[in-house]
């Protein structure tokens, strides 16, 4: 069986202590929250930290406040806790749906929101065991020099595979990053870069401590995930959409995010702009879907044929917008996810 590599283990009780250890150890240390991404990576020798800094005992990371005026979510909140909490409905529906579809029920009990937001990018050539990667001469992301997805590519094309980030982006989330020396709050969209290796604009010793959401009163949101099976699989395409309607049912504000088609979740700005001031009729939805799909340029680095994934993008944006305007898409949802998730 596969075994973890040897490591040293630290278990701080305070956020400051954790940050201090990370700063001291440098890149030889990695924070350990749920471990559901890090431990497999370690077993496959994709990540081999000398020191693991467990965040389990840091109570502050599990605190949260959820309310109509806004929410503060501790980074160690689990997807199961989000999925099971009725307060994550109405405006926050997209987050609830995203969290409910992460991996499997057991993993949802162990994984964390922060871990999912910082999820390592994935690729057919990278998420493989050590021996396999050795037999292809490794890859650009780890120990090699060629990106096998597109051998001419100067940058890594590994895919963003987080469920919660697209949803949070559609909800306008911010994050609080804490390091030994400082603290900052940034919009979640500023945290990501479209690069498979350097996909997070954060220092190695910065800990994502909290997710902040403003009031979503008047908003409706939704999240659609494409994967081969009803569970286990990472998203190979996702669409998160959130809309605030005027009293007349016209779109005042819209956020549309397409996930897992690049190294970061992509914001479909053109599509968002198009929707503003319109009502969600068939033509508007179709045109918006077409514009949103333009940002999707999936590559052959995940399950499913890449041109087919692009085709589904249009379909999913349509579904999302239809749902937001109030249509009942339960049967479509069940067919695609194999599970009825009430909207």
């Amino acid at each position, binding site marked *: 069986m*596969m075994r973890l590599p040897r490591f040293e283990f630290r278990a701080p009780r305070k956020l400051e202590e954790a940050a201090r250890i990370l700063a001291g150890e440098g890149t030889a240390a990695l924070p350990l929250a749920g471990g559901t991404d890090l431990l497999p990576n370690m077993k496959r020798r994709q990540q081999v930290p000398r020191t693991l800094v467990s965040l389990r005992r840091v109570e502050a990371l599990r605190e949260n406040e959820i309310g109509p005026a806004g929410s503060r979510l501790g980074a160690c909140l689990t997807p199961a806790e989000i999925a099971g909490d009725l307060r994550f409905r109405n405006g926050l529906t997209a987050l609830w749906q995203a969290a409910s579809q992460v991996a499997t029920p057991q993993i949802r009990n162990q994984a964390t929101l922060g871990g999912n937001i910082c999820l390592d990018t994935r690729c057919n050539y990278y998420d493989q065991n050590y021996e*396999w990667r050795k037999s*292809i001469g490794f890859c650009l992301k780890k120990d090699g020099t060629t990106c096998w997805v597109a051998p001419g590519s100067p940058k890594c094309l590994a895919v963003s595979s987080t469920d919660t980030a697209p949803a949070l982006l559609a909800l306008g989330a911010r994050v609080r990053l804490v390091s030994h020396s400082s603290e900052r709050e940034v919009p979640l969209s500023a945290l990501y870069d479209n690069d498979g290796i350097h996909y997070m604009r954060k220092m190695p010793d910065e800990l994502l401590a909290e997710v902040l959401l403003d009031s979503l009163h008047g908003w409706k949101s939704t999240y659609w995930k494409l994967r081969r099976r*009803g569970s286990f*699989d990472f998203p190979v395409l996702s669409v998160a959409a959130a809309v605030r309607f005027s009293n007349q049912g016209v779109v005042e504000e819209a956020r549309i995010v397409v996930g897992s088609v690049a190294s970061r979740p992509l914001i479909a700005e053109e599509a968002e702009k198009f929707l503003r001031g319109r009502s969600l009729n068939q033509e508007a939805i179709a045109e918006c879907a077409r514009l949103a799909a333009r940002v999707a340029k999936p590559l052959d680095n995940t399950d499913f044929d890449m041109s*087919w994934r692009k085709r589904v993008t249009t379909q999913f944006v349509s579904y999302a917008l239809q749902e937001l305007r109030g249509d009942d898409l339960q049967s479509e949802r069940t*067919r695609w996810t*194999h599970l009825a998730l009430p909207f």
Partner: protein
Amino acid sequence: MGFGRHMPKQKEWPDLPVKDSPADAEALRVIGVSRRRIDARAKVTGQTRFADDISLPRIAYCKLLRSPHPHALIKRIDVSRAFAHPGVYLVLTGKDLPIRYGILPVSQDEQALCTDHVRHVGDPVAAVIAREELTAFEALDLIDVQYEILTTISDPQQALETPEPRIHDYGEEGNIHKRIALEFGNVEDGFAEADEIFEDTFFYEGSTHLAIEQHAALATKDPEGKLTIWSCTQTPHYLHRALAKVLEMPPAHIRVIATPNGGGFGGKSEPFPHEMIVAKAALLLDRPVKICLTREEVFYCHRGRHPVLMKFKTGVKKDGSITSMQLQTLVDGGAYGSYGVASAFYTGALQTTTYHIPRYRFQACRTFTNKPPCGPKRGHGTVQPRFGQEIQLDKIAEKLEIDPAELRLRIVESPNTLTANFLTLGTVGLAECLRRVVRSSGWNEKFRKLPEGHGVGLACSAYLTGAGLPIYWNNMPHSGVQLKLDRGGGVTVFCGASEIGQGSDDVLAAIVAEVLGIDTFDVRVYTGDTDLGPVDLGSYSSRVTLMAGNAALQAAERARAMLAEAVSKRFEVPQHRLRFVQKHVFDSAAPERRVSFPEAICLAEAQFGTIGTVGSYTPPKSSALYKGGGVGPSPTYSYTAAVVEAVVDPVTGWVTVPKVWIAHDIGRALNPPLVRGQIEGGVYMGLGEALMEEQEFRRLPKKLSHALVHKFPSILEYKSPTALDMPEVVTELIEDPDPRGPFGAKEVGQGPLLPVMPAVANAVYDAVGVRIDEVPITPEKIVKALAEKKAGRAPRFGPSHFPPIHWPEALRVPPPWEGGDGQAVNDVRRQKKPDAEKEKVSAS
């Protein structure tokens, strides 16, 4: 299904009958009753000892270094740094285990560790044995291997075009492993007679077994100094033979214990390198050595479904009857022989068992390629051509304007007959299976009548109940059972069969309990241990229920006869009046004259001496006497019909299967919940293959790399349906007992898988009007086919090209109705008496 109804009636028994009646004499009290299987309690309490659960003091752990290259020569191995690593006890390389072995006598082409030639990524090259598994893993990196890269051969097409370098220096020529050409009757005559001729090409992608339990083995030198090895093998006897050969030890000094398999499906039915290696290491170190393969390594062991390209040419009359069939298959064998020669024969052998085919020509070509070797996976080689045949029949039905179910009903083969290729059929319940699924699925109201995007598809199949010939040529029984009867009333069953989850242990206990009138809880079963039980060839080809079952039946009846004789003497009543019921033996004319079962044993022991009986089973001689006729014969065949409902989104091609109806001709269900479980499990695995499973390989750009790697050797990326993906399955059993099976039972472990994939394909056609002539049937293929349809071209996705192959001259075997005797009329080799050991190609 109420839980209460199925509580085991272990302690509640109906009252003794007052008077003898024919019904009582016939009534079965164990067989056919829904019962808790004998190993269930151990399984639900986590006490079943799987191979990796076993540990011994001073245990050492083994890890294997595997080739990173798909095709290369080993120029040099230096293990000195690994050997010097703290905690490492031993490092082995090819020179320590050079003797070749293999499951088939005709392809003994494997070495436990490659000496000089590696043939696929994952081919084992060295072994490190250390105190901790992690230490052994760390030491692997300290082994230096120098390779000389050879041309990578990725697929059969390339294998045909690339005779050099040879992956093996045996086989027909170049990288062609085996070619087969058999003709039963003149097919051209049949085509001339036909009203319509259909030519179709299909492709069936490879898939793997994906048993949840990874392969594991633990070997030790036992206290007496002999070798004992526990391994999750389906075939302890064949492993026993291979170990003796490779280790150059007398088999009498080797004990193989097949642990209960955490799933096998054909993936654990031959000797593996890791078993040889831990055995050797345990002997050298005189300490227990264990190995447990990682999931990725299991993908490299593989022995899964051969990818097969098929070309069918079928002639039919307007009424649907078949005049001629010609089938050509191109089989991707992977890097080693495995069961492959048999697999290649299987890609043609069983086509004649379902519908009457008066003239049949079959040609097959298996090539080697630089990928993990293919072998037997549930359905073994018959799955692929069944897929093609059932879809083609659907196309034929459409053209002839006959309902697909009706068409099949018209041409179903007859029971107790010989097929064109001299397979002897037993009972044939296919017609009834068809009628049942048609009725239960509402076929007539749905077929071609559902709204766009919704469809139903139908398919049938047959499968053998145990291969009629053993892997190695011999005249001995295929299965043996020994019974020991204890004075206390306990009965112990010893048999070499191995429990792989299918319930074979329970079958043995049930048969014995039924005959002796006791409870399965009174029976202890010891299986899979070469020291304890007589040889059973193993759990493959669905042979255990029929063969080990018949052996158990014979042993139990012999025991019963001895007890009856002793009791009859005691009461001075004729033996035929005695009944064995409810742990008693009593006189049916006067039930108060009775003894308990233990008392009966004591009476018998007093009369005969120590009691013990044996039973054995050898299949009847086959009529397929031609060379190659060793694959296909079976004591009898099971039949299955399935209807699948599919929902297809015409825009995205997204496919879902909401429901499956399946009817299986099982002869007799020995334990209904277990039978149902096999059927539903077969449907599950069939849906996996139909929709999402792919053993696919990635050839990196040739200019940049020679790499040929498995695309996703993980249980995440190799997709197997989850609890959410599984539809509702409605199962029907057709029970028309076949006297060839114990209590009339036929197989159920493999047959129900076969019709599912073609039924899905046929359902997709009914839903959106496109043919996907390959598996897996995925959304992007449907989208492409729909685009073709829209453009006015053939509405299909699938292969159109079958490469030209230089076929050998066909062995011509006149079918029975042309006066044939099962022999070829033009077999040059039969002129001289062939050495049976070398010539006979044995079956799986």
